[in-house]
C-alpha cells in the first residue's frame, strides 16, 4: 500500500511539472509582447523597456525564459503583478482567506446536506418523499448560481434588510477582534447560502443513485434475512458502501474550491481569489494569472491524491489489487 501511495505522489509531481510548463506556454503564446500591451500607446525608450523586461522575467529567448520561470516558481517567487507592481505571492495571500472561508464552509455544508437528502430520497425511492427530494435537488442543480445569488440578494438583503449587500465589512466600520469576526460572518451568510444550495444538488443526486445501486446487492438481503433491523442495515451496510463514489466527488470538488466561485464572489464583491481572477484577466495581468492557475491546479492535484488514498482506506478491493 505504501508503494501505491508513493507512486501516486510521484505521478502528482509529474503532473505539477506538466501544469507548470503548460501554463508557461499558454500565457506566453496568448500574449506575445506583454510589455508592449502593458505600455500601450506610451513612448518608452529601449533602455526602459529592457529594465521592465528584466523585472518581469521577459528578457532572453523563450527557452531561457522557461528555465528562469521554473527556477523562480520552485523558489516560491511568482514575480510582480503588472497591475500594481506588488509581489504576486503577497496579493494572493491576502485574497486567499475570504475564498477559503466562504467556499470551504459552503462545500462542507453542501456535502453534509446533499448526502443526507440523497440517502433520504433513495431510501424512500418512488414515494412522494423521493419526488420532493429529487425534484428540489434537480431544480437547485439546474439553477445558475449567479441568478440564485441575485434573488437571495434582493430578498434577504434588500427587502428584508437582514444581511448586508456585499463586501466583507461595513465601509465605515472600525471594529476589531470578535466584533469584526462577527461582522465578517454576517457578510458571508448570503454568499455562503447561495453556494451551499447550488453545490448541494450534485451530491444529493450522486448519493441517491449510488445508494440505489447498492441496495440491489445480495448482502443487504442477507443482512435483512439475518433479522437485522432496517435502520441498522441502512446505516451500517448500505450507506457505508454507497459513500465511496460520493467521497471521491467531495475530495475532487474540494480541489476546485479556490477557483470555483467567481460569479458569486463578483456579485457579493468578496475580495477573494475569484474576483482576483476576473480582475487579472481584464489586463491581462500575466504573472497574477499564472500564479492563480498554478494554485488552482495544484490544489486539484493534491486533492486527487488525497481522494485516492482515502479510497484505498475505505475500499479494501482497491488496496489488494
Amino acid at each position, binding site marked *: 500500500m505504501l508503494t501505491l501511495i508513493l507512486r501516486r505522489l510521484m505521478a502528482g509531481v509529474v*503532473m505539477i511539472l506538466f501544469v507548470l510548463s503548460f501554463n508557461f506556454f499558454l500565457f506566453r503564446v496568448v500574449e506575445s509582447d506583454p510589455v508592449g500591451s502593458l505600455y500601450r500607446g506610451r513612448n518608452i525608450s529601449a533602455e526602459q523597456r529592457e529594465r521592465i523586461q528584466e523585472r518581469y522575467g521577459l528578457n532572453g529567448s523563450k527557452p531561457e525564459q522557461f528555465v528562469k520561470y521554473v527556477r523562480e516558481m520552485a523558489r516560491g517567487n511568482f514575480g510582480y503583478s503588472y497591475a500594481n507592481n506588488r509581489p504576486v505571492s503577497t496579493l494572493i495571500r491576502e485574497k486567499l482567506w475570504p475564498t477559503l472561508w466562504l467556499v470551504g464552509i459552503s462545500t462542507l455544508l453542501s456535502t453534509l446536506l446533499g448526502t443526507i437528502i440523497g440517502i433520504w430520497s433513495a431510501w424512500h425511492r418512488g414515494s412522494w418523499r423521493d419526488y420532493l427530494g429529487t425534484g428540489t435537488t434537480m431544480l437547485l442543480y439546474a439553477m*445558475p448560481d449567479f441568478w440564485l445569488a*441575485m434573488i437571495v440578494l434582493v430578498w434577504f438583503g434588500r427587502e428584508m434588510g437582514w444581511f448586508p449587500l456585499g463586501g466583507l465589512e461595513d465601509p465605515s466600520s472600525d471594529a476589531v477582534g470578535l466584533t469584526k469576526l462577527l461582522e465578517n460572518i454576517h457578510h458571508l451568510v448570503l454568499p455562503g447560502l447561495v453556494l451551499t444550495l447550488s453545490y448541494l444538488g450534485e451530491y444529493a443526486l450522486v448519493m441517491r443513485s449510488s445508494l440505489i*445501486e447498492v441496495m440491489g446487492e445480495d448482502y443487504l438481503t442477507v443482512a435483512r434475512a439475518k433479522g437485522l433491523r432496517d435502520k441498522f442495515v441502512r446505516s451500517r451496510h448500505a450507506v457505508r458502501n454507497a459513500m465511496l463514489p460520493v467521497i471521491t466527488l467531495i475530495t475532487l470538488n474540494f480541489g476546485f474550491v479556490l*477557483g470555483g466561485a467567481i460569479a458569486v464572489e463578483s456579485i457579493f464583491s468578496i475580495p477573494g481569489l475569484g474576483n482576483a481572477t476576473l480582475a487579472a484577466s481584464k489586463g*491581462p495581468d500575466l504573472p497574477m494569472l499564472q500564479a492563480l492557475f498554478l494554485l488552482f*491546479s495544484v490544489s486539484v492535484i493534491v486533492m486527487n491524491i488525497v481522494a485516492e488514498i482515502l479510497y484505498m482506506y475505505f475500499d479494501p478491493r482497491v488496496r489488494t489489487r
Partner: protein
Amino acid sequence: MTATTSPPTERLASRRIAWIRRRRALADLWRRFRRDRPGLFGLVVLTLIVFMAVAAPLIADPARFDLLAVRDIEEWQSPNSSHWFGTDDNGRDVFAMFVHGSRVSLLVGLTAAAIAIVIGSLFGLTSGYTAGSWLDRVLNRVTEWFLVIPFLPLAIVLVSVLDEPTLFGLIKPGLGVIVFVIGITSWPGTARVIRAQVMSVKERLYVDRARALGANDRHVITRHILPNVTGLIVANATLTVPITILTESTLSFLGLGDPTRQSWGRILNEAKQAGAITRNAWWYYLPAGIGILLVVLAFTLIGQALETILNPKLRERES
C-alpha cells in the same frame, strides 16, 4: 472491408437488414423513453423552447429592444398588456429580449457541446483502443491537465485574451471564441467515459472472433467498437449541453459574451448593472434565469432518461 467476396445483391440485402434492425432499435428506444416521465417532460419543455428560439422574430419584434427605437417608451414599466415582461432602464421590452436571448443560449450550448463531444470521443476512442501504449499515455496526460485546470477561469482568460481572429482566422471574436473556448474546456469527462467503455468492448469475445477471421483495425473500430459506444456518446452529449449552457450564461453574465447579441446571461448582467436588484425589478431578472433553468433541466432529464436506456449496466437495474 474484409468480406467483399459476396455478390452485390446479397450485400444490398444485408444492408437492408441492418437498416431494419436500426429502425427497430430506434422504435425500441422511443418505446422505453416514452415510459420515462421526467424524460418526456424534459422533451416537451425543450421542444417549446426550441420552437421559441426558431420562431423568435415572429413572436417578438427585435426593434422592441433596439436602443434607438425605444427612446420614447417609458422605462421600468412593470408587466402589462403591451409589455408582457415589463421594460428595463432604457424602455426596452424584456419579453422581446427574453425570446431572442434563447437563440444564443441554445446555439452556443449546442455547438460547444458538439465540439466537446467530437474531441472527447476522438480522445476516448484513440486512447481506449491503444490502451497502454505511449499514445494512450500522452493523451491521458492531456486529458488530466484539462480535468485539473479550473475550467471557468481558463474560459474567462481565453475569452478576454482572444480579441483577434486566431487559428488562421477560423475563430473570430464574439460568439466564435465563446463556442471554441467552452468546447475545448468541456470534453475531458466524455473522453474518460468513452475510453473506459472502449477498453471493455475491445476485450469482448466477438472482437477476438472478428480478428481471428482476419478483421483489421478499421473493421473492428467501425463495426464493433463504434456501434457499442454510440449510445454512450449520445447520452453523454445530452448531459454535456447543460454544462455548456450554464458556462455560456456565466461568461455572458460576467460581461464576456458577444456584445452584439442578446443572450439570457447578458440580460442578467444588464439587469444587475442597471440596478434591477436595488429597485427589485423582478420582471427584469426573473425570466432569463427561469429560461436557463428550464433548458438545463430539460437537457438533464432527457440525458438521464437516455442514459438509463442506452447504458446496458443501468438498464439491467431497471427491470
